[in-house]
């Protein structure tokens, strides 16, 4: 993984000093609260319902064991002993004190981490496929691109005061696990069909929130070397022309929507023609320098099938279930990537205690080349595990309470913090996730239902990405009561689609039953091994609407 050189290290230290100065200047009155707010947000510091919240960047979701241990230390020393992984592969601490923040930032800098641009109206922390460098369907590892963008976007002198936040995601694979079509800007690494040269498909104007939109392709093929200059052109058009009169219409998706994708492309290309690309772009040596950090680890040459693992699985059903559910094929023979679920039934999706972090750091160090990943589904990944060692890893995970075999299943629920923490929330999301998980706690039943993504947001800002959940749940407030809208058919992958509402909103108590009714409808209708989302696509919404209406009728009686 990437390691800071002297420049990166100094840069992050200087940013810590800058922020410490900003805190001091707020305290002595040099900065008003209005002036300080965007400055603290740009450094990931929010004021939540009960306390400050600090959001730490996990660039493209890659961490080392040492970094995770430091996060455990911070959780214990400055928080209540746990952290929360978010849908943008970041980590949040919910209880830090303002006075401790500069010190926490120093501890992060010690392990090459920071909070730069994890919030605010700027280019946010860049996300990527959690199986980068692992997936067989990958044209190229997206992380060198993401790292280049991390550097380029950090304290950008021109694009720090955008109309609104700007989120970038990168994928290098055919199957899109980074949800690039619902980001402000998405990049997909691809090969030019004629020349074989590597470049990018560029997608702009996707996003969720109160006006969900699927992004539009604005460049079919951008040569790799031109990346930064082209991004500069996109950002300059957005910075100059994005709406600033209404914060709900300020995202780039609204600009693209209002002027049309064609006109947006025309403006970007006009700007691109004017700027001095060769100056802006990273030299090829720099691109190679970064890429070298992401070279594959020193794998052993192994047979592609592990007899040892096969035998262990045959003897231990729990191990077998874990592997079947949480293993992801590795491109390197004899290895496998393991998803480690942070969604035990009854737990808070994405929460991890300091003890769990330490235990997990040890496992990653010993069995996965000292590397781990954070997924946008709020889980973790051990990217490079020897198949032979999976039984040991499973035992170690189990001992740490981290062996929940539900990756991608109905209980692997994405939920935003909601009313338990968030100042903007209109309803709770975490307890809803917990209730649904309890409803489907039977593991055999979960496996029978198969892949099914439930995503929950506690208000229309949609941090839980409910629009692109196979089943989406949006918590609103109606006549002083929490009220939940259920959508169906959303998809965040290359088949990106927004879910449609099944009917009127329902009470919190009715949600698990409604999900049960939807799942039963699927089980009745599914044809030969169809996954949930496939049945929804084929059968349409009607049968689900009928079942949902029945739930509402019963609730009314």
């Amino acid at each position, binding site marked *: 993984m990437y390691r800071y*050189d002297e*420049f*990166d290290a*100094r*840069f992050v230290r*200087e*940013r810590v*000093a*800058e922020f410490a*100065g*900003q805190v001091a*200047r707020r305290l002595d*009155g*040099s*900065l*008003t609260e209005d*002036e300080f707010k*965007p*400055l603290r947000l740009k450094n990931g510091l929010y004021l939540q319902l009960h306390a400050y919240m600090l959001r730490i960047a996990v660039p493209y979701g890659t961490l080392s064991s040492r970094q995770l241990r430091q996060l455990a230390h911070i959780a214990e020393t400055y928080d209540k002993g746990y952290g929360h992984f978010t849908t943008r592969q970041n980590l949040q601490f919910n209880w830090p004190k303002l006075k401790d923040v500069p010190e926490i930032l120093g501890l992060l800098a010690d392990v090459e981490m920071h909070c730069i641009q994890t919030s605010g*109206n700027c280019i946010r922390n860049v996300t990527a496929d959690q199986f980068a460098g692992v997936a067989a369907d990958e044209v190229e590892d997206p992380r060198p691109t993401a790292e280049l963008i991390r*550097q*380029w976007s*950090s*304290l*950008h*002198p*021109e*694009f*720090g*005061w*955008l109309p609104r936040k700007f989120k970038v995601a990168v994928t290098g694979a055919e199957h899109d696990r980074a949800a690039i079509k619902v980001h402000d800007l998405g990049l997909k690494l691809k090969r030019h069909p004629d020349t074989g040269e590597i470049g990018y498909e560029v997608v702009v104007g996707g996003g969720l929130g109160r006006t969900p939109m699927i992004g539009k392709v604005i460049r079919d093929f951008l040569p790799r*070397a031109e990346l930064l200059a082209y991004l500069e052109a996109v950002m*300059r058009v957005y*910075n*100059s022309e994005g709406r*600033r009169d209404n914060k709900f219409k300020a995202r780039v998706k609204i600009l693209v929507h209002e002027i049309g994708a064609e006109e947006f492309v025309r403006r970007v290309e006009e700007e691109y023609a*004017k*700027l*001095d690309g*060769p*100056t*802006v*772009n*990273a*030299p*090829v*040596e*720099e691109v190679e*320098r970064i890429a070298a950090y992401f070279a594959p680890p020193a794998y052993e040459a192994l047979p592609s099938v592990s007899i040892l693992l096969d035998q262990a699985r045959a003897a231990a059903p729990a191990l077998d279930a874990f592997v079947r559910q949480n293993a992801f094929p590795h491109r390197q023979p004899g290895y496998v990537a393991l998803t480690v679920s942070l969604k035990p039934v009854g737990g808070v999706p994405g929460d991890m205690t300091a003890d769990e972090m330490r235990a997990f750091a040890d496992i990653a160090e010993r069995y996965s080349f000292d590397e781990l990943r954070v997924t946008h589904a709020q889980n973790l990944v051990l990217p490079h595990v020897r198949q032979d060692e999976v039984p040991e890893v499973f035992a170690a995970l189990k001992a740490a309470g981290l062996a929940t075999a539900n990756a991608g299943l109905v209980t692997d629920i994405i939920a935003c913090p909601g009313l338990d923490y968030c100042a903007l929330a209109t309803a709770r999301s975490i307890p809803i996730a917990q209730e649904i998980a309890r409803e489907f706690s039977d593991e055999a039943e979960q496996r029978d239902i198969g892949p099914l993504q439930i995503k929950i947001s506690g208000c229309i800002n949609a941090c839980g990405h409910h629009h692109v959940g196979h089943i989406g749940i949006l918590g609103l407030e109606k006549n002083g009561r929490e009220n939940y809208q259920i959508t169906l058919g959303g998809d965040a992958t290359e088949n990106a689609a927004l879910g449609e509402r099944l009917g009127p909103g329902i009470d919190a108590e009715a949600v698990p039953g409604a999900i049960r009714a939807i799942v039963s409808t699927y089980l009745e209708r599914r044809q030969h091994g169809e996954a949930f989302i496939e049945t929804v696509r084929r059968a349409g919404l009607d049968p689900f609407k009928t079942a949902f209406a029945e739930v509402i009728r019963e609730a009314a009686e």
Partner: protein
Amino acid sequence: MTLITWNGQAQSQFLAVETAEALAAAEGPVIVPLALARAALDGRRNAPLGLLVANDASPDDIAPFFDKVELIAIAFPSFSDGRGLSLARKLRRAGFTGRLRASGPVIADQFADCLACGFDEVDLPEGVAARQPMEQWLKARSTVTSHYQTGYAHGASILEQRRAGRGGASS
């Protein structure tokens, strides 16, 4: 108004005028809105002229005056509106070599970025200036010593410094 330049506080020579009448009455260097630019040039005394432009003005409308004015001031309606930074870049790229001023309630924390985008100075309303004295501006200017982005006026970028470290190999 308080003027802050790279070196510290300075005195503005220019008087801001907003109407044709005020323009007629003014002596010495003035700053006029873009709409009065023609009138100001036609009735020119020899005093230097500055232009005040909105942050959404088109560079094409301003370019004809590049060699006729000494200063262009871009209005910052609020510190959180970053359009002026992009406009500054565009004016520099289009060839304006005179003085470029950010005019409005910019904060010290933005000074380095303003300079990097091509501004020479910031003209502050008294409220901000009183809270954020000149020393804060000079400190903010140099807290972060190197940046990643190439092509901005903040010295050699980190990418360029790395390249130099590699022995200046060209791409």
